[in-house]
């Protein structure tokens, strides 16, 4: 996909609709400045289609109206907007700290979310406490919105565990590294919600590359067949490591949903308000028995896929620069400032708070102890396993053979 084709497109819904009512404008805590200006539509590579892009905030931070989606953010107060802004700033700060820690050798690897804060915070804040989230391995912003202590996310990247948190504490499942696997877990979980007669919903996160995986196709099939309350939230960040979206699909990703019999929507993934609105729409569908939906958050991964790769080998600097102009945080800040919803003190306080977070993350990571070698044998089976018991005992005896102490607690015997 070229730079031009990935440029924020004319939000047809925003520009083609009528004026928003003053009531909704008031309750949104903001007035719609204007409809998005009509730009020449770009052509999607390989598709020849003109995807609609739901947008409520332009890259310049101007509020545009959307007859379809405004109602989903009609109750968003200025305070809510500040929360969204804080979420994005804190998430970005956390992410930057993790990248730095990786460069310092404190983490083995880090998948940065830089540039995807709006997609994650918008969708994350749309969820309810009783909803369940199935992330990939990059949903640090969603984890933040779910109330997960961000330092818990770092254990697997430091190499002290392979997950390490209780998914049921915040209804935030473990990171899943195999691409697309979690979409099936999410669908199964949603099938369970439906069986329980609950009105909770599930959000399954996936990337553009994952849409090529068979598991994602199967998840779409199961979700559609069982009308499961699941939202497939695809962050199309344009690059699956080094492979562009056109290597994954010849049609815009959101259109994939149609073939499975549920709706798909493309939203400006750098517009936190639009991501919130579209996610709320999708979650409401799920809760009310209307079944699954696919949200394609059209965004950009500003950094490398992980700290191991080198984007300069496969994409041009100009492309990144074009997306920098659509930065999700700058965009909301411009809006907050223009509307007078946040003052300098707020931003200064947030800067200080984010620095405190960075410091805490740094300290926690550096103080994370290596697991005890015997932990290799823990948590393999819930009901135990004779072979694990045998190998544990053998290894304990082997380790004890190095002990200098006269008595060894593990063996209970004397060591010469």
């Amino acid at each position, binding site marked *: 996909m070229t730079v031009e084709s990935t440029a924020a497109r004319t939000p047809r819904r925003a520009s083609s609709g009528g004026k928003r009512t003053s009531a909704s404008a008031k309750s949104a805590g903001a007035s719609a400045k204007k409809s998005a200006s009509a730009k020449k539509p770009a052509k999607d590579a390989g598709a020849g289609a003109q995807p609609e892009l739901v947008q409520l905030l332009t890259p310049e931070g101007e509020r545009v109206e959307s007859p379809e989606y405004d109602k989903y953010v009609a109750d968003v107060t200025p305070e809510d907007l500040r929360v969204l802004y804080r979420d994005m700033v804190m998430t970005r700060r956390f992410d930057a700290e993790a990248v730095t820690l990786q460069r310092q050798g404190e983490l083995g690897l880090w998948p940065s979310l830089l540039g995807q804060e709006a997609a994650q915070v918008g969708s994350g804040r749309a969820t309810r406490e009783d909803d369940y989230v199935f992330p990939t391995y990059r949903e640090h912003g969603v984890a933040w919105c779910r109330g997960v202590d961000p330092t818990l996310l770092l254990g697997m990247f430091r190499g002290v*565990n*392979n*997950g*390490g*948190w*209780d*998914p*049921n504490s915040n209804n935030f*499942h*473990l990171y*899943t590294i*195999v691409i697309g*696997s979690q*979409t*099936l*877990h*999410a*669908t*199964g*979980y*949603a*099938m*369970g*919600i439906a*069986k*329980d007669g609950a009105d909770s919903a599930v959000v399954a996160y996936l990337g553009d590359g994952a849409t090529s995986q*068979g*598991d994602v196709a*199967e*998840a779409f*099939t*199961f979700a559609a*067949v069982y009308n499961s309350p699941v939202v497939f939230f695809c962050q199309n960040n344009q690059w699956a490591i080094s492979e562009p979206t056109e290597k994954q699909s010849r049609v815009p990703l959101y259109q994939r949903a149609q073939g499975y019999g549920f709706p798909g929507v493309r939203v400006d993934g750098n517009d936190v308000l639009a991501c919130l609105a579209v996610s709320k729409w999708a979650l409401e569908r799920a809760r009310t028995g209307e079944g699954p939906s696919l949200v394609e958050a059209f965004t950009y991964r500003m950094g490398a896929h992980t700290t191991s790769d080198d984007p300069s080998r496969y994409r041009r600097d100009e492309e990144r620069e074009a997306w920098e102009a659509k930065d999700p945080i700058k965009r909301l800040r411009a809006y907050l400032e223009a509307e007078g919803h946040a003052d300098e003190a707020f931003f200064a306080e947030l800067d200080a708070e984010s620095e405190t977070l960075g410091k805490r993350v740094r300290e926690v990571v550096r103080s994370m102890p290596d697991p005890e070698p015997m932990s290799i044998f*823990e*948590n*393999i*089976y*819930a*009901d135990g*396993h*004779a*072979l*694990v018991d045998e190998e544990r005992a053998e290894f304990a005896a082997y380790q004890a053979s190095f002990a200098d102490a006269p008595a060894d607690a593990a063996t209970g015997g004397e060591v010469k």
Partner: protein
Amino acid sequence: MAVKKLPVAKAINESLRTALEADPKVVVMGEDVGKLGGVFRVTDGLQKDFGDDRVIDTPLAESGIIGTAIGLALRGYRPVAEIQFDGFVFPAYDQIVTQLAKMYARSLGKIKVPVVIRIPYGGGIGAVEHHSESPEALFAHVAGLKVVSPSNSSDAYWMLQQAIQSDDPVIFFEPKRRYWEKGEVNTDAIPDPLHKASVAREGTDATLVAYGPMVRTCLEAAAAAAEEGKSLEVVDLRSISPIDFDTVQASAEKTGRLIVVHEAPVFFGAGAEIAARITERSFYHLEAPVLRVGGFHSPYPPARVEEDYLPGLDRVLDAVDRSLAY
């Protein structure tokens, strides 16, 4: 005492019925398990009695079946997923190995994923390609999974319920060529633990170790050997992960000779593990090297030659003779 004489397939059906009645969180899912009652009719009548919400006909997508079973388990359900035939499990292999087996460890023991995967396996029914394989070693090799295979109706009935009650994922291999063989099931009995091997026949000259479909073959071999004056002990392994090595060791040390029999290819198979472990444990008690009888390092062959591929009475007895010749 409630003792019934049931074919293996019917014993599994009764076991599923009991499990569905006992726990509303148990769900049966798979291709054709509902209206059709499964291609082997193992789930016959269950959907009629428990509804399509509990006995779920799924899309034809094995990864989807296992992946959604995982999700259901995370929601608190206890899914019993059926893979229609052994060779069809591979589209789901990724979900089983990378997800199902490892989630408990990943969560540091915070979440359990009690999924049972029923797989009719093994040959001897004249089927086409992918319908007769014995992939148990592939699953036993993966930490986090438990692998079992009953050989008779009573074990089929009890072991399946134990597998469903287990908080660990269990791969439940059903010996499809034995589906129609009848045996007594005491539904009031206190069953052996799921992972305990049993001595199916006592003997003194050599031990045959088998599981699933080969147990009967070994019992027939032992009966034939008895006519020749040889006393063979037969151990039914029942569980392939973990393996009850204590029972195998005791028998091997008693007879001094051990022959492992399975349908799966010998190379890197369960027999290799048993031979190595028993050699380590019982080196000075053995009168002969541990021998293995099983499938060849070939794709499962066309049905017209499967009897040559599968260990039969003669190949088992030939191995007994070789062992006794040391």
